């Protein structure tokens, strides 16, 4: 495990693909109406801010994952409890994202395919990649990132040339003031998808070039923020904010409008591909984080945990709700009340304790 080294470019692409993940295709920040794209961008900035906290901990313990330094900071017993909680939230995150992805896929394209089959296929491929190791995951992300950016480029060009975009739909800018935007950021936007970068605290020790790590992750968050924000902007200019708001899968509707006369049509399949790719990385990273946390805590070999975790993820994802509506309801509550505990509250406690200890140990000799 220890000799894993992920290069900066690959780490960048992994973070980027993780952040784009489902956020690119689903409805993000639409509480802010036509200003959603601003809310997303602000959320991204907040996400970067949150990351600086993780960065501080990473600098103190460059060779330990979150599960390691939590125990170093809080002491073994308390630390172990916290790590178990983290493992659970990682598994839950993977399960939720898998459910998100397979539900959308079933809604939009595979109407009659059982959702369990779709989800099982996804978790199988994620498990396979993790079995091959984190480096493989990171390299895969790089190759696929090139493809995703190409798809994005094609779609963007088509949207511009098809003349479906009406910029006036963005106006009036901040017509209801900054309040709904701020509310949307506070409620969920900074957390989904930008706060979710907390899984990378488990992967940071494998970063090859520790010095560059400080910049790579925030720049990937920023890039993802710009891309998602731009996507929201395109959705709104094409469909109008009301229709985007009522759509669980707005990019699909947007792209279905793109056509160059009768020649190029039906690019929806590209969006479905984006969805599948995004979900894959989202699930794989959460899943990987969970596996590393468990193996680190219980000193179990990494590979033997892959299958049990997959089963937990698959069934927790499938059994968490009866319908997609219920799933989203739950998701909104998780984002507002549960995730912040793990992405902000606990890390802040860790930072305070670590800083305090650091201060004491430094001042003692003097």
């Amino acid at each position: 495990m220890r000799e894993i080294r992920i290069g900066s470019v690959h780490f960048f692409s992994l973070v980027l693909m993780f952040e784009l993940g489902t956020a690119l295709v689903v409805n993000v920040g639409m509480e802010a109406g036509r200003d959603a794209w601003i809310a997303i961008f602000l959320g991204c900035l907040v996400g970067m801010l949150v990351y600086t906290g993780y960065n501080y901990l990473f600098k103190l313990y460059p060779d330990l994952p979150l599960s390691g330094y939590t125990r170093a900071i809080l002491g073994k017993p308390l630390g172990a409890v916290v790590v178990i909680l983290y493992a659970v939230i990682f598994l839950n995150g993977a399960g939720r994202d898998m459910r998100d992805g397979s539900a959308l896929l079933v809604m939009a394209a595979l109407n009659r395919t059982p959702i369990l089959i779709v989800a099982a296929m996804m978790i199988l491929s994620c498990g396979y990649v993790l079995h091959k190791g984190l480096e493989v995951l990171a390299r895969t992300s790089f190759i696929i990132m090139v493809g995703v950016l190409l798809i994005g480029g094609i779609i963007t060009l088509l949207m511009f040339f098809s003349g479906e975009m009406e910029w006036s739909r963005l106006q009036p800018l901040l017509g209801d003031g900054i309040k709904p935007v701020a509310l949307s950021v506070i409620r969920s936007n900074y957390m989904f998808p930008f706060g979710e970068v907390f899984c990378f605290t488990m992967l940071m020790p494998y970063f090859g070039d520790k010095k560059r790590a400080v910049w790579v992750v925030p720049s990937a968050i920023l890039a993802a923020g710009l891309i998602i924000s731009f996507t929201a902007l395109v959705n709104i200019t094409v469909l109008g904010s009301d229709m985007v708001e009522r759509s669980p899968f707005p990019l699909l509707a947007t792209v279905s409008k793109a056509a160059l006369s009768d020649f190029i049509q039906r690019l929806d399949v590209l969006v479905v591909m984006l969805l599948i790719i995004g979900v894959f990385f989202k699930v794989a990273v959460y899943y990987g984080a969970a596996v590393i946390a468990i193996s680190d805590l219980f000193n179990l070999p990494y590979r033997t945990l892959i299958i049990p975790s997959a089963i937990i993820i698959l069934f927790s994802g499938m059994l968490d709700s009866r319908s997609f509506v219920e799933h989203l309801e739950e998701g909104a509550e998780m984002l507002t009340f549960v995730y912040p505990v793990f992405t902000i509250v606990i890390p802040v406690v860790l930072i305070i304790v670590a800083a305090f200890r650091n201060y004491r140990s430094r001042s003692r000799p003097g």
Partner: protein
Amino acid sequence: MDGQVLKLWKLLAISGLLLLQTGCWDSVELNRRAIVSGVSIDKGLTEDKRYSVSFQVIVADEITGKNSRGNAPVALYKGSGRSIYEAFGNASRQSARILSLGHSKVIIISEDLAREGIRDLMDIFERESDMRLSTLVFVSRGQRAEDILSVMTIFGKIPANDLVQKLETGNRSFGYNFRIEVDDVIRGILAKEGGAIINGVIVKGDLEAGGTKSNLEGIKPKAILKNAGLAVFKQDKLMAFQDGTEGMGLSLIHNKQKEYPLLLELGKNESATFSMFKVHTSVTANAKDPEHPVIYISTQQQAALKEYNGSLDISKSSVLRNWEKLLSEETKKEIDAAVKAAMRLNSDYIRFNETVNRVNPKGWKRVKGRWDTIFTQCEVHIKVNTLIRHTEMRTRSLKSSGEGVE
């Protein structure tokens, strides 16, 4: 030995996985599908048959030619029900193949249904994952919507495609109908102060003969599909059809008209006809006082002289300058007619509400609730700027030369 067993297992596992590769849960073979090219919705006869929906289905064999029996290229399946989907189900039962809506090009709504409101029936076209938002919407003017779908057409075998092409060709140079898709209609309905705009369509000629092959046998078609006016709505209820100058003005306000013809009466049987092109309209507002907003509509256009039977010497730029003014006046009249019509109907489908909201969002919130009274009092300034670049292939007209000889 052990290695061999392992290999065997691997082989078995792989072949097992291969088995999964063959199937797609949702696959429907093409020869089990019937592609729906158009959907029409009429008012049903009774309460529990609220909608009567017809589906124009492409008969693939007739299109490709090889197995063609020489029959109609499309067939109409009809069903009725309390909702569109129920009607769809009833229609599907008559078909040997699965009706698939994914490729439908047009949705036609009958006028009497549109007058009652179309909010309820648009939902399925937005929600259903098979349907595309880019499907075009029409209102059948004074006729049953299913009649529109049962006309044999001259160009192309599929009537729905013919309708789409007519719309596009028309919009390109002469007509004032423009592409109006499902999402445009939905946005129109959602605007509380405004309403949707939908293209009107009629069958001109003999409805009975239109549905048979005899329609195509003669040189003069017995029935022809035709775009007819723009249906304007107050929210989701049809108010009126706008034709002629009003229709053209409406299309101009929405900046959908790139080219259109314009005739200048120059007195005593003299006239000049132009093709206007590179037309661009923008609408802004001064809404410092949202109670009395001032709307500015400004149009830029170029004109090409197509026909002239007068005796003026048009190699002089002063003549052309005068004509530019007259043309601007003429365009202004068209836009003004459209604005007046909207105010008369008291439905803001010309989207002044959005314009005001854009320039003064706070003020807009104050007046939003009583926009219908403010809208009709809006002060509207129309500015048109016309440029005649040249007079095409001749300078003076035939007539002026003839007079010169006498």
